[in-house]
């Protein structure tokens, strides 16, 4: 459905963040992209959405057979991709209702019925409809962000760190919501720090390191991979105090 081929991108001409990233999100699946801060996860999403001017410098992005490379964000969004941005991207001084309606900017005709669907999915938002988004709790804001993305009836939804900064009990709620949206046929691309949770619901996963895909496989495969276990799942114990481990080399096979 969504296909990235050999993407090279960065923010200024001198720097390069993505060095040939290729990945695929098949129809109706959840694909997760793991990686450390600065590995290029958010850059990948921004490149897909056309949010960085004149990028990617190399490679192509195709969505349902149409190329998205160097199209403007507006038409990319209209083609059926919705983004749930990092940090939830609330319009804090607008009401929950207004936030949601902005998601349906190009879908005025279906806005009302979609709104009913979204409110059914997140009943708590119904109560807070006329409240300013900034006054909501982190978990509720994340619901608004996801709901807002759904307002455009997307075929693919991109989520950038949806669990970041949420208390553990909200995290589960968010992941449940993602799974249920996917169950209704929306494809999902998920970027997460919380690798354990992400791998639980993902059909397929990629690991990004320094702008390259270093590992890929099904969710189950990656859960069992030793390196992933050590670096992202934290399954091994912190060794007792020793020396010389400060900047250890990583070993990828």
């Amino acid at each position, binding site marked *: 459905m969504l296909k990235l081929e050999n993407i090279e991108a960065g923010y200024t001409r001198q*720097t390069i963040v993505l060095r040939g990233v290729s990945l695929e999100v098949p129809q109706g699946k959840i694909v997760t992209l793991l*990686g*450390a*801060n*600065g590995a290029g996860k958010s850059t990948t999403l921004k490149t897909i959405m056309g949010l960085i001017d004149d990028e990617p410098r190399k490679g192509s992005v195709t969505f349902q057979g149409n190329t998205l490379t160097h199209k403007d964000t507006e038409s990319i969004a209209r083609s059926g991709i919705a983004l749930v941005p990092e940090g939830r991207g609330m319009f804090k001084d607008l009401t929950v209702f207004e936030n949601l309606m902005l998601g349906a900017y190009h879908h005025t005709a279906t806005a009302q019925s979609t709104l009913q669907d979204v409110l059914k999915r997140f009943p708590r938002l119904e109560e807070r409809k006329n409240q300013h988004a900034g006054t909501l*709790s*982190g978990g509720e804001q994340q619901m608004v962000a996801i709901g807002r993305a759904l307002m455009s009836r997307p075929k693919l939804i991109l989520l950038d760190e949806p669990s970041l*900064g*949420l*208390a*553990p*009990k909200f995290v*589960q709620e968010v992941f449940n919501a993602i799974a249920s949206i996917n169950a209704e046929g929306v494809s999902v691309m998920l970027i997460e*720090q919380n690798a354990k949770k992400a791998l639980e619901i993902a059909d397929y996963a990629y690991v990004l390191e320094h702008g390259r895909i270093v590992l890929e496989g099904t969710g189950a495969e990656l859960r069992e991979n030793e390196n992933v276990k*050590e*670096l*992202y*799942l*934290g*399954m091994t114990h*912190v*060794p007792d*105090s*020793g*020396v010389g*481990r*400060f*900047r*250890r080399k*990583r070993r990828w096979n």
Partner: protein
Amino acid sequence: MTVLLEAKNVTLRFGGVTAVNDVSFTVGANETVALIGPNGAGKSSLFNCITALYKPQVGNISFMGQELTKTSPDSIASLGISRTFQNIELFGGLTVLENLLLGRHQHLKVNLFHAMLGTPTWVKSEVEQIKRAEAMIELLELQPYRDRRVRGLPYGVQKIVEIGRALVSEPKLLLMDEPVAGLTTDEKDELVQRLGELKNELGLSILLVEHDIRVVSSLAERIVVLEYGRKIADGTPEQIRNDPVVIAAYLGEEAQTLEGQKK
């Protein structure tokens, strides 16, 4: 163990909202204490009270017998407290070396005129600070970045620079606000490891706010749990893990997974 930092009945209100409600706790010499709790529990507010950025309405905080609620934020450093921030607060326009020199700011007693005229007194004092900063650069293996502007350095390096800036001021107590947020597990482990070493080497006390339970339990000797501005528990990691109040309020199933892992 001698008590270094003591907070007594601290209450902080913003308008009608009570951010911190009657919280008391202590940090002993060469002890690591973690503050945990859900978002909005008042952890950062408490931090800001200790660094005198906020003034609590009730209660007092003393550090080695010195009342902190009555001082200004910039004199905290000279008392021997330094801190790092949740979303890295570095001086992006300055080099790594200059960032570390800023950490020495409180030790600089040279006045404006010496500086503007570039007198030998100024050169002497500056050289002394550079030496200290240089030592810290070596300790943290930051040599490759010494003269690079901090803006644009990798995230992980920035985290280290920030810690370096906090340490170069020779604090007795280091406050760290989510030191491992945004790092990979690998990097987290390394940092935890390193902090443990530094703590022993420098005889530091550490007070940290952290979400990552794993980091907290491996680093902290004692954990203070906050919820809605109140302290709901205070004890060793072991005690906290088994505290039913904490489990209900915060950990939820996470605690169980953690338990599972331990086994």
